[in-house]
C-alpha cells in the first residue's frame, strides 16, 4: 500500500496554510473563504492532534486504529521537529485549540494565537525549504 502525502507538492495545503497565516495577520479574505480556510485548518490540525494523542498514550489500541491521523501527525512532526523537538504534540494541540476558539468566538487569546501563527509559519517555511532542496533524479548506471 502507498499513501500519497507530499506536502511540498500539495498546492492546496500550501494555500490553506498561507491563507491561515494571512487571516491571523489581519488579511480580509471575505467571509466565505475565511470560514472555509478556518474549517479546513481545524480539520487538518484536529487530525494531527488525534494522531499525536494516539501515539502518545500508553495503550496500544488507539495507536493501532488511527492510521490516517497518525500519518497526518507524522507529516507535521517531520516539518516541526527541528524547531519544537518533543514539544511538537503540545504545540499542535494548542494550535488546534486556537482554531477552535477562532471558529467559535472569532478570536483566541494572545498566547494561543501567537503559537498558531508560529506553527503555520514554520510549516510553510519547512514545506518551501523541502521543495527547494528536493534533488533532481540521479543518473543511474546499472551493469549486470
Amino acid at each position: 500500500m502507498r499513501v500519497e502525502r507530499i506536502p511540498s507538492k500539495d498546492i492546496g495545503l500550501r494555500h490553506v496554510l498561507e491563507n491561515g497565516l494571512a487571516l491571523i495577520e489581519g488579511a480580509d479574505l471575505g467571509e466565505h473563504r475565511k470560514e472555509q480556510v478556518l474549517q479546513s485548518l481545524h480539520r487538518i490540525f484536529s487530525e494531527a492532534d488525534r494522531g499525536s494523542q494516539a501515539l502518545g498514550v500508553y495503550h496500544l489500541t488507539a495507536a493501532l486504529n488511527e492510521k490516517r491521523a497518525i500519518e497526518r501527525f507524522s507529516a507535521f512532526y517531520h516539518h516541526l521537529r527541528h524547531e519544537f523537538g518533543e514539544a511538537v504534540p503540545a504545540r499542535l494541540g494548542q494550535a488546534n485549540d486556537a482554531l477552535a476558539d477562532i471558529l467559535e468566538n472569532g478570536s483566541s487569546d494572545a498566547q494561543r494565537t501567537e503559537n498558531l501563527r508560529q506553527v503555520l509559519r514554520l510549516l510553510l517555511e519547512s514545506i518551501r525549504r523541502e521543495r527547494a532542496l528536493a534533488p533532481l533524479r540521479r543518473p543511474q548506471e546499472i551493469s549486470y
Partner: protein
Amino acid sequence: MEHARRACSFFLARLRAEIERLRGGVFPGHHPGPHKWLNLADGFIDTAEQYIQQSYDPNLHPDLAGVKVVEAEDLGDQAYDLLEQMLGSDAEHIPHQVVAPFQRWVDGLDIENTIFFRAEHAANYELWIVEYDIDNINGATDSLKAASKAIHWPLLRVTVPGQALGMLPHFAVVAHELGHAIEDRVSIDFDKYDADWQEFVTRVQARIGTLSQDDIIDAKEILSDWLIELKSDAVGFYVAGPAFFFALAGFLEISGRGYGIGRSHPPSDTRLDLLVDHIKSGAPSFANIYKDLGGLDITPEINSPNVMKVSPPDNLFAELSRDLDGKEAAFCVELIPLVKKMGKDIYSSVLLNLKDECADMIYTPAQFLLDWNRHVDALCALIPPIEYNDGGTLKATSLTSILNVGWAALLTRLDDISAGSSTTGDETARRMERLNELLLKAVELSEARRLWDEHQ
C-alpha cells in the same frame, strides 16, 4: 518572466492535447475511474491557465505575478503527475476481462471510493491511496471543483503486474489490496496486549539501549503498518479463499524469495503461516477438501518453497542491521513474536466485520466444495467454468470461484489438461498457459452471462 510564462502556456497546451488523446483510448470494462482522473487533470490545467492570465494583470505587483506563474507551473506539474499515475490503465495493458469482475469485488465490499485498475511491467501489487483537497486551492476553476466533486475521495488505484506476470490465478492478490481500502473499518481492541508491548520494549532496549518517546512512536508506526498488512491478508483470505494464499505465496516465490520483512511488512513466513492456520481451520476446512479431492497436503511452503524463513532473532538482527538502522532492525526483529500473537485476533475481527457488513463476500469451504465438484473435471476437459446449474437455472460463476477452481486444477490436475498439438516450448508451461486462457475466458463469459441476467 515572459519566457517562463510562454513556456508554461506551451506545456499546458501540450498536456491538454495529451489528455484529449487519452480520452480517445479504451479503458476496459467502460470503467469511469480513468475518465474522472482525466477530468481532474483537465481541471488542474484550467486553473493553471487562469493563473497565467491573472499574471498579466497590470495592477498586480511583479512579485505576485511571478508567484502566479510559478503556481501555474506547479499545477501543470501536478496534472502531468496525474497522467503518469494512470499509465497502464488502458485496454492495451490490463487484461480487459478482469476489470468488471474486480469492480464487483469493490462493490461487494461496499467500497464507494472512486477507483481504477492498471497494470505495470513490474512484480508489484499495490493499492495507492491519494487525496487532493481541491477546495483549499486558491481560485480553483469550476471545472476543477466539479471534477473533484465527481470523485469519491480518497481515490484508489489498484496496480497489478502486467505482461508475463499477469497470470489470472495470481490476481487473487487484488483481494488483499482491496483489504487495504477497508482495513480501517476493523477496529480491534489491542489493550490486552499492553503487557506484551512492554515486553517488546524491554527486549528492544536490551539490544540497543534506552528508547526515547520518538523511538516509541516509530516502533508503533511499524507495528501499525504490519497489522494493516495482516488485516489485508485476512480480507484477502476471507474474500478469495485459498486462492489468495496460493497467489500470494506464488507471487512471493517468483518475485524475490527474500524474508519480506521491513518497515511496511512483517516477514513473509509469518504471513503464510497465519494463512495456512486459517486454511486448516473449520470442519471441513479448505485443507480437508484439498486433501480429500485432490490428494494435496497444504503447507506454508507448498507454493513458495524458496521463500526464505527468517533466521533466529540474534542472526536476523545482525542481518537487518546491515540495511536498516539499529533501532529499526531491533523493532522488526522483536515485533515478530508480538504480531504472531495478535494474528488470530486480527483474522477473527476481520471475519466478524465482513459478516456484519458484506457476508455475501465471504468465500466458504462449503462453496469451495460445490465449485470443485461442479467445475474441476470440466476444466480438465477444457470447459471453462462460466456457469453452473442451480436447480434448473443457469447462473454465472463468480470471479472468486473461478480463481479457486483454477488453483485446484493447477495444483492437483495439471497433467490432465491437454498441452495442445504444438510441440514447441515446455509442455508444462503450455498446459499452464492453456489453463490461464480457459480461466480468462471463464471470467469474460461469466461476466457477460451476469450482465445478460441483470438486463433481463
